[in-house]
C-alpha cells in the first residue's frame, strides 16, 4: 500500500484534541458530532444485539419458558426499533454522513452547524425515551410497525406504546433536521468545481437519502399524531367502532416505511461504492448509471408501499400495480450490483478487511434482493409474508447488507477518524466470524419460512419440523455476538497500541484523504478546487484514468500555503442545542406521565433557548462572514433550507388532508355541510390572502432600504394573521359551544379540528416569526443587506397561505352535498 509522503508543515490541532467534556457538550464541529452519533449508536448496537440474543435464546427449543410472552414481545419489538432507528440510521447518516459529507465535498462544516448539534441531542433524548421502558412501565411491545388497532389503549393499556409513539415523534424531528441540513450542505457547500457528476458516490447516496427522509418522515409523524390523539384524547382514528379503519395506519406507516428501507440501504450503497474502487485501484464503473439508479430507486420507493400489505386484501388491481412497481425497483438495483462487480473486474485487488466486507455485501445483498423479488409477487407473498422467509429477507438486506457496509466502512475510515490503524489480523478474524455466523444464522430462516414458521411467535410446538434450524440459528447467533467482541477488542487494541495512521493509508481517491489524519477542526487549510471526479486521485496521479502505479505528484497534494487560522471561519460552540433538546425531552416525558407542569417547563426551556440561539450570533448587528462566500450555487443556505422544509411540510399537510377526505366520507353526522360557516371563512380567507400581499410589500420595502414602510407592512401582515386566527378561534368556539361538535364527536370533527388546527398553529408560529422580525425592524437591524431574513419568513408565510387555499377549497367549498 503506497503511503504518500506529505511535505513537512506545522500540524494543527486535530478535531479530537482539546475542549474537555464541556467542549464535547457544546461542540458544533461536524466531526465531533459524528463521533457522538457513532458512540451512541454502538452502545445501542450492544443493546439491540442483547435483545436479539434474548429472542434467539427463547426460540432455541420448542415450548421454551426462558422468557414470558410479554418479555419476548418487548424484546423483538425493541430489537427492530433499536436496529433501525438507533443503530443503522444514525451510523449511516449521523456518523458517516456527518463525518464524510463536508470532507468529501471540500467544505469546512455543514450548512447549519448548530442545527447539526441540535439533531444529535434530540436523537439522543429520543433514543432514551424509547428505551425508558427498561426502568419504567415496560418496553414497546407491538412490533416496530405498531399496527393499529392493537396499539389502542384498550388493547395496549400500558406506557409501552406511549414510549414508542413519543420516542418516534422525537426521533422524527431529529431525522428531518439533519436531513434538511445535509441536503442544503450537499447542494450548496460543495467546493468550487465539484459539480453533481463529480461528487463521490456516497454524497450522491446521501443526497437522495436526505430527500427521502424529508418527504417520508412527515407521513409517519402524522400517523403517530393520530395514534397519540387516540390514546390521549379519545379520538377514533384507528377505531372500527366509529367507522374508521386500522388500515389507515398501515398506509401512513408504509408510505414512510418503504422509503425508510431505502433510507437505510442507499447510504450503504454509497459506502460500498467508496470502498470497492479504492481497494480495486480502479474508478467506479458506470458512475452516471450508478447515480441515476439511486434517483430511480428513490422515486420508485414512494410507489411501492402496498407490497407490505398484499395480505390485507387491497384487491387484484392494487395488488398488480404494487407488484409491477416493486419489480421495477429490481432494475436499478441490478445495475448497481453489476456495476460493483464490473468495478472489481480488471482491478488490482487488495484484500483488506474493508474490501472483504464490501465483497460479502455484494453477494449477500444480492441474495436478499432476489428473495425480495419473490415477495414482490403477491401470490407468492401470500404464502411467505409474516413468515421467517421475510425475516431472512430483511436480515440479508439490512444485517448482512447495510451492517456489513457499515463494518467495511468502519475498517476503511477508522484511521481517518481516530488517527490509528485497526489490526488487520483481528479484522480478518472479525470478518470471517461475521460472514460465517450471519449466514449460518439467517440463511436457514429461508427454510423455516418455507416450512411455515410465522414471525413474532414466542413459542412453537415440537413436531413442526422447525426444531433443528432454530437450535442451529441460536448457536450461530452467539457466534455473531462473538464476532462483535472481536471488533470491540480490535477497537480497544487500536486505540491503545494501534499504529499511527498516515494521511492516506489506502491510496484512496476522494478529498477526505487529502487532509491530515485526524483532520484539523477546519478540515481544509485551503478549500480545494475540483476539476474531475475522484479529485484526490487526479491530484496525485494526474488523471482519472491513472492506474496508481505512476509517481505521485507531491506538489499537487501539499497545502499551497500554511493555513492562517484568522482567515478561516469556524462557528463558535453553543450550549443552546443541548438546552433545546432537554426542553423537548421534558415535554415528551411530561406528556407521558400526564404531569403538565413538566410539559410547560420543557416548552418554556425550548422556546427560550431557541430564541436565544436565534439571536446568538450570526446576522443581528454584524456581518455574517460565511453566508454567501462558501455557497456553491450563489444562494444563501438558509433559503434552500426553508424551501426543503416547505417540501417536507407539503407531505405533512398532504397526509392530513387525504385522511380528512377519506374519513369525511365514512363519518356520521353532524356533517360538514350542516356546520361550516362559509361567509365567515371566506372573509378570513380573503384577509389571509391579503396578508401575503402585505408581506410582499414589506419585503420590497426592506429591499429598497425603506425601513419605515418595511416594518409598517410587516406589522400589517402580522395583524392580518391575527385577524385570521381570531376568525378561527370564533369558528371553533361556535362549533364547540353552539353545535356541540367536540374534538372526538365523530370522524369528521376530529379530522377537521386536526387539519384546520394544525394549519392555525402554523399561522400562529408565522405571526410570532413576523413579530420577531418586526422587533428587529423597529430597532433598525434590518436593512437591504439583511432583507433575506424577511424573505425567508415571507416564504414560510406564503406557504402557509397556499396551504390554506387548498384547505379552503377542499374542506369548505367541496362540501358533501348529499348524505345517505
Amino acid at each position, binding site marked *: 500500500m503506497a503511503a504518500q509522503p506529505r511535505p513537512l508543515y506545522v500540524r494543527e490541532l486535530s478535531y479530537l484534541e482539546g475542549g474537555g467534556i464541556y467542549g464535547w457538550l457544546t461542540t458544533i464541529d461536524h466531526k465531533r458530532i459524528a463521533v457522538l452519533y457513532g458512540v451512541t449508536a454502538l452502545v445501542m448496537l450492544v443493546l439491540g444485539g442483547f435483545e436479539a440474543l434474548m429472542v434467539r435464546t427463547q426460540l432455541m427449543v420448542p415450548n421454551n419458558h426462558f422468557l414470558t410472552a410479554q418479555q419476548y414481545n418487548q424484546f423483538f419489538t425493541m430489537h427492530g426499533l433499536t436496529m433501525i432507528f438507533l443503530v443503522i440510521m444514525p451510523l449511516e447518516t449521523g456518523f458517516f454522513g456527518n463525518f464524510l459529507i463536508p470532507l468529501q465535498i471540500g467544505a469546512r462544516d455543514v450548512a447549519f452547524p448548530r442545527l447539526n448539534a441540535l439533531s444529535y441531542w434530540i436523537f439522543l433524548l429520543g433514543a432514551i425515551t424509547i428505551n425508558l421502558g427498561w426502568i419504567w412501565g415496560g418496553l414497546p411491545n407491538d412490533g416496530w410497525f405498531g399496527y393499529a388497532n392493537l396499539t389502542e389503549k384498550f388493547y395496549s393499556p400500558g406506557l409501552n406504546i406511549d414510549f414508542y409513539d413519543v420516542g418516534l415523534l422525537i426521533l422524527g424531528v431529529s431525522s428531518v433536521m439533519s436531513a434538511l441540513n445535509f441536503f442544503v450542505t450537499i447542494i450548496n457547500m460543495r467546493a468550487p468545481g465539484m459539480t453533481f457528476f463529480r461528487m463521490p458516490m456516497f454524497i450522491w447516496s446521501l443526497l437522495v437519502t436526505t430527500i427521502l427522509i424529508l418527504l417520508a418522515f412527515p407521513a409517519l409523524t402524522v400517523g403517530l399524531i393520530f395514534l397519540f390523539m387516540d390514546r390521549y384524547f379519545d379520538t377514533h382514528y384507528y377505531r372500527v367502532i366509529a367507522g374508521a379503519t386500522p388500515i389507515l395506519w398501515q398506509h401512513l406507516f408504509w408510505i414512510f416505511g418503504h422509503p425508510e428501507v431505502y433510507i437505510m440501504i442507499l447510504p450503504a450503497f454509497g459506502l460500498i461504492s467508496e470502498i470497492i474502487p479504492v481497494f480495486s485501484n480502479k474508478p467506479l464503473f458506470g458512475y452516471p448509471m450508478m447515480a441515476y439508479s439511486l434517483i430511480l430507486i428513490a422515486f420508485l420507493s414512494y410507489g411501492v408501499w402496498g407490497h407490505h400489505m398484499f395480505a390485507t386484501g387491497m384487491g387484484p388491481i392494487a395488488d*398488480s400495480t404494487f407488484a409491477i412497481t416493486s*419489480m421495477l425497483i429490481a432494475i436499478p438495483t441490478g445495475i448497481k450490483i453489476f456495476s460493483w462487480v464490473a468495478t472489481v473486474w*480488471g*482491478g488490482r485487488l487488495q484484500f483488506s478487511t474493508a474490501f472483504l466486507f464490501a465483497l460479502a455485501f455484494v453477494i449477500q445483498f444480492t441474495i436478499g434482493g432476489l428473495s425480495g423479488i*419473490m415477495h414482490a409477487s403477491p*401470490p407468492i407473498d401470500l*404464502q411467505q409474508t409474516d413468515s421467517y422467509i421475510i425475516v431472512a429477507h430483511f436480515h440479508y438486506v439490512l444485517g448482512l447488507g447495510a451492517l456489513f457496509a457499515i463494518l467495511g466502512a468502519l475498517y476503511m475510515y477508522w484511521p481517518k477518524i481516530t488517527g490509528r490503524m485497526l489490526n488487520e489480523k483481528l479484522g480478518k478474524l472479525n470478518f470471517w466470524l461475521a460472514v460465517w455466523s450471519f449466514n449460518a444464522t439467517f440463511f436457514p430462516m429461508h427454510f423455516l419460512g418455507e416450512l411455515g414458521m410465522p414471525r*413474532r411467535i414466542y413459542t412453537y410446538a415440537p*413436531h413442526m419440523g422447525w426444531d433443528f434450524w432454530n437450535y442451529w440459528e441460536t448457536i450461530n447467533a452467539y457466534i455473531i455476538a462473538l464476532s462483535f467482541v472481536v471488533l470491540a477488542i480490535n477497537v480497544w487494541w487500536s486505540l491503545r497500541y494501534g499504529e499511527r495512521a498516515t494521511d492516506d493509508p489506502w491510496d484512496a481517491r476522494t478529498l477526505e484523504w487529502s487532509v491530515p489524519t485526524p483532520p484539523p477542526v477546519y478540515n481544509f487549510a485551503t478549500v480545494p478546487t475540483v476539476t474531475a471526479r475522484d479529485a484526490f486521485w487526479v491530484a496525485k496521479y494526474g488523471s482519472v484514468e491513472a492506474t496508481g502505479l505512476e509517481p505521485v505528484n507531491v506538489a499537487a497534494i501539499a497545502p499551497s500555503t500554511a493555513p492562517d487560522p484568522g482567515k478561516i471561519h469556524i462557528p463558535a460552540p453553543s450550549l443552546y442545542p443541548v438546552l433545546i433538546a432537554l426542553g423537548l425531552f421534558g415535554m415528551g416525558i411530561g406528556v407521558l406521565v400526564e404531569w403538565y407542569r413538566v410539559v410547560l417547563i420543557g416548552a418554556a426551556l425550548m422556546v427560550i433557548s431557541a430564541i436565544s440561539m436565534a439571536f446568538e450570533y450570526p446576522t443581528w448587528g454584524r456581518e455574517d462572514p460565511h453566508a454567501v462566500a462558501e455557497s456553491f450555487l450563489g444562494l444563501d443556505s438558509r433559503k434552500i433550507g426553508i424551501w426543503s422544509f416547505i417540501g417536507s411540510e407539503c407531505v405533512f399537510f398532504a397526509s392530513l388532508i387525504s385522511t380528512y377526505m377519506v374519513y369525511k366520507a365514512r363519518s356520521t353526522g353532524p356533517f360538514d355541510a350542516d356546520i361550516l360557516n362559509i361567509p365567515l371563512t371566506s372573509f378570513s380567507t380573503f384577509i389571509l390572502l391579503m396578508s401575503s400581499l402585505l408581506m410582499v410589500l414589506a419585503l420590497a420595502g426592506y429591499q429598497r432600504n425603506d425601513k419605515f414602510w418595511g416594518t409598517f407592512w410587516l406589522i400589517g401582515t402580522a395583524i392580518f394573521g391575527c385577524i385570521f386566527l381570531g376568525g378561527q378561534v370564533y369558528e371553533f368556539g361556535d362549533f364547540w359551544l353552539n353545535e356541540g361538535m367536540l374534538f372526538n364527536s365523530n370522524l369528521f370533527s376530529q379530522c377537521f379540528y386536526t387539519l384546520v388546527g394544525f394549519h392555525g398553529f402554523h399561522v400562529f408560529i408565522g405571526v410570532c416569526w413576523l413579530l420577531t422580525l418586526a422587533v428587529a425592524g423597529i430597532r433598525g437591524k434590518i436593512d437591504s443587506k439583511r432583507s433575506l431574513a424577511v424573505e425567508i419568513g415571507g416564504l414560510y408565510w406564503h406557504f402557509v397561505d397556499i396551504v390554506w387555499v387548498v384547505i379552503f377549497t377542499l374542506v369548505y367549498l367541496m362540501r358533501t352535498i348529499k348524505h345517505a
Partner: protein
Amino acid sequence: MTAPLRRSALVSALAVTTAVVVGGCKPSRPYPLDTLAPTSDLTKAFYDLFVEVTVLDIIVLIVVVAALFLAIAFFSTRTGAARRPSVKHSDMYLEMAWTIIPALILLAITVPTVRTIIKTQPYSWPKDALPVEVIAHQWWWEFHYPTLGVETADEVHIPTGRVIHFELFSKDVIHSFFMPQVGGKRDVIPGQENQITLVANVPGEYYGQCTEFCGDSHANMRFRVFVQSPADFQEWVKHQLEPPVKPTSGPAAAGAKVFANAPCAICHTIRGVSGFSKQYTYGFRGPDLTHFGSRTTLAGAIMDNTPQNVAVWIRNPDEVKPGANMPTLGLSGRELNELVAYLEALK
C-alpha cells in the same frame, strides 16, 4: 403427483447453490405448515409461480456470484502483483445488457404474477359455493357455516371438490388466517370483510396459524383444517347439527351442573343449554362448546383434547395462554373433574 418430485429438485438446487448442508432439513415426516405442499387449486397456483421465480432467482444469483468470484480469482494482487489494473469505467453495451436482460426476466415474472392474481382473487364465485365465516378473536378462531347452521371453533371442516368461500371477520384486532397447504394466507381485519376462494383436492388434516402479530398470545392462535370427502363432510355436518349430549348420571351429569353454576355460560354457548343473542358484538366471547368432545384440540389448537389437558387449561388459562380472556374459575378438584367429564361427554 409431480409436486414432490419438483419439490425435491428445488430443495437440492437450493442446497447446491448455497453450499449449505441440507441433510438437517430433510423431512422425517411431513411438515405441518409446509408452504410448498399445495393441496388446493389456490395453493397450486401459488406454488407454480414460486417455482418459476425461484429458478430464475437462482440463475441470477449464480451469474453474480460466479462473476464476482472469477474477478477475485483473476485480479487479486497475489496472482499478478505487477499487472497494471484496468482503468475502464464504462461500457455502453455492457450497461445496456444488464439493464435490459433483468427487465426481460422481470417481465417473465410479472406476466404470470398478474395472471395468477386475477385468477386467484375472483370477484364472483359459483352459487353452490360453500360459505364459511371465519371470525378471529384474541386468540382463537370461530367458524360459522351460515348455509348449514353449524358453529365450531379452532377446527374447520371442508369438503373436497367444491368451491369454498371463506369470509374473514375480526372481532378485535388484525389477525391473519394462514393455512399454507390449503389456502395461503389473508389478513383478518376488523371492519373489513376479506375472503379466500378455493377448491381443496386432497383429504387430510392440515395445520393453520395466525400470522399477524395480535398481542400476547399471538403464538398460541392456531387452528386445524380437516379436508374431507363430501360423504364424510355430510356425516360431520349431520353430527354437528344434533343437539348436545345431556348426561343423566355420573360425574358428567354433575359437571353439567358445575357448568351452569360457574360463569362458563356467560361466554360459552352450548346449544339448548346456554348462549347469547347473535347481536352480541362487543365484549368477550368464548368458543361454542356444543360438540366440544368431538374436537381433537382445544384452546386455539395448542393442545390435544384430552381430559388432562382440559383440566390444565381450566385450572389456569393464563398460564397456558398468556393474556387469555378466560378467567381462572377457582373450582375445587372434584368440580373440575366433573366439569371436564361433562365437556368430554359433549361428543
